[in-house]
């Protein structure tokens, strides 16, 4: 039963990772922009939701506030900075968005201080349900899984079944052609960037009550999202989804079970130290393994 519970935890973590890496993939896939400030949007979502929740006490408003703030910040960033970087090489994009991280992190520091904000779990969602006999699972985490899966499904429908999705897919491979067909590419780019920001904000909102809301939270998950993108294959939302689930499961299961396994092989304190080291790099080891076998990632987009 504890294994099942940890698997669910892994799926829940994987879903957060998916929301992050889907945004990265969309923005990179269609616009060719590598956005390091994506993690900052996650942080903005988390902070905004925490503030709205503290003032109004409403879960729904907090959710809306978080994703609205992240999407608005994303659109602002696209308008002021990223728009000027489409034609530049990746180096300039990396550096400009790195500068944005410094700015956003320090601003958050000035506004909210270094102390992490703890977001109270909404009382209506703080209970647990019995899924199977002996498997009691927190309602909140279950909701995160359901919400994440429905967002993933919605994203697939958007990309594969709608006109906007068609343009997004076409723009990823044949940018000039899309422009020639009379599509307002500038607007499309802004919209895609906003959508990516919205997803990052959503990830931040739902992570708030599980982890603590603090400066620098965005970068930790950003790097994991990178790993997911590499595992799944760059430019493929499907790849991001499976990569995120695999990475979330590996990370969670390693953290949960490695100490136990290693303790059967060696002394307690050594085992704990080694296990904590190994489990924090397990996802990177997974990435190295995938790279060795398939450098392009598990489900790479079309070349």
């Amino acid at each position, binding site marked *: 039963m504890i294994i099942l519970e940890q698997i669910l935890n892994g799926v829940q973590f994987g879903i957060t990772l998916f929301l992050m890496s889907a945004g990265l993939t969309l923005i*990179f896939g269609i616009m060719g922009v*590598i956005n390091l400030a994506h993690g900052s949007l996650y942080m903005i979502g988390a902070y905004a939701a925490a503030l709205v929740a503290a003032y109004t006490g409403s879960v729904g408003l907090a959710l809306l506030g978080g994703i609205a703030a992240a999407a608005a910040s994303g659109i602002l960033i696209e308008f002021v*900075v990223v728009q*000027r970087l489409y034609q530049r090489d*990746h*180096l*300039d994009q*990396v*550096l*400009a968005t*790195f*500068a*944005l*991280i*410094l*700015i956003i*992190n*320090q*601003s958050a*520091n*000035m506004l909210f201080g270094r102390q992490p904000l703890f977001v109270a779990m909404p009382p209506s969602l703080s209970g647990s349900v019995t899924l199977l006999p002996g498997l009691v699972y927190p309602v909140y985490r279950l909701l995160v899984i359901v919400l994440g899966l429905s967002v993933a499904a919605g994203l697939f429908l958007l990309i594969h079944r709608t006109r906007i999705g068609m343009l997004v897919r076409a723009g990823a491979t044949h940018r000039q052609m899309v422009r020639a067909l009379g599509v307002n590419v500038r607007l499309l780019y802004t919209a895609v960037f906003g959508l990516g920001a919205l997803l990052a904000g959503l990830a931040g909102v739902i992570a708030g009550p599980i982890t603590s809301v603090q400066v620098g939270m965005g*970068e930790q998950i950003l*790097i994991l999202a*990178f*790993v997911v*993108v*590499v595992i799944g294959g*760059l430019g493929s939302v499907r790849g991001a989804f499976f990569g995120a689930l695999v990475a979330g499961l590996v990370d969670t299961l390693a953290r949960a079970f490695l100490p136990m396994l290693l303790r059967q092989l060696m002394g307690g304190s050594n085992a704990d*130290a080694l296990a*904590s*080291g190994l489990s*924090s*790099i397990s996802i*990177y*080891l997974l*990435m*190295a393994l995938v*790279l*060795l076998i398939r*450098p*392009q*990632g598990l489900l790479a987009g079309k070349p």
Partner: protein
Amino acid sequence: MTSDSLESRTGDRSITIVAPRLLAAVLVGVLLAMLPPAGAMLQVPSVVGLATQVMIYAIAAMSLNLVLGYGGLVTFGHAAFFGLGGYAVGILYQHFADSSAFLGFFPGSDALLVAIPVAMLVSAAAAAGIGALSLRTSGVPFIMITLAFAQMVFFLFVSLKAYGGDDGLMMRRRDVLPFLNTRDDATFYYICLMAAAAWFLLTACIVRSRFGFVLSGLRQNERRMMAMGVAPYRYRLVAFIIAGAGAGLAGALMANHLRFVSPDMMHWTKSGELMMMVILGGAGTLTGPLLGAAAMVLLETLLAARTENWQLYLGFILLAVVMLTRGGLAALLGRAGRAQP
């Protein structure tokens, strides 16, 4: 390819270019050598420590520039090798201090002439491993993978409680050199200055060698180079390893300078800072990383002295530099030099 490196290679014009450049180099060398006595005279001894930091970061930035500027490989994990070099020194020192042995086999040491080669070897070996895997990809995946590997190294050292974990390792004294007193800050500055000069010359030799041309050629047109029979992977890997060794050297010196190493040295923001130095100064130029390192260290020091929120202003300045200039400070100086011949 920058215009001045082109000019110096196109025959007769190089003669007219080299003389003023040589003069400038000698002048800068004399100025740098005069720094400690001048600092003492003007009652600003802190300038020596600052200049030492500039030299150390310049080595790290120059080594990064080899892959980033000349090789066109955007690696976001260079701080890992910087930190590994630092930890090699710190770990050797700790084993020396409590006269134990690393892995029960290798004795510790407090000799700079042992610590530095070990640091460079460790970093080069790590670069060989990480590079061999990362170079299987290119472009954006390469950026992400180098970043992820650097994080892996970072977390490894955070969890290594035997070597301080999060808190890092203190060194009671700097490593020793025969006949020189490394505890004297001015002497240590000269050591770093020499190391930076040596690395500068090495880089200059590398980029003007056949190897350097192939590396630049691969950046400009990989397919053409492959058609000429060049195997890109090997050249890039060798460049990556050399760059790793250079970062290891810088890390070893930094550990000695601060007498402290911590995982912060290999945090990914440090990689970003090193990249900023290269870009700020001018990627793919010899002097760019030196200028960039100096600009960055001075900027950080000045801003940090004025305000607690210096990172905010640093961010705005860097953003402006990236958005508004092309080619960094070296190009800016070059343009100014050409404007008034």
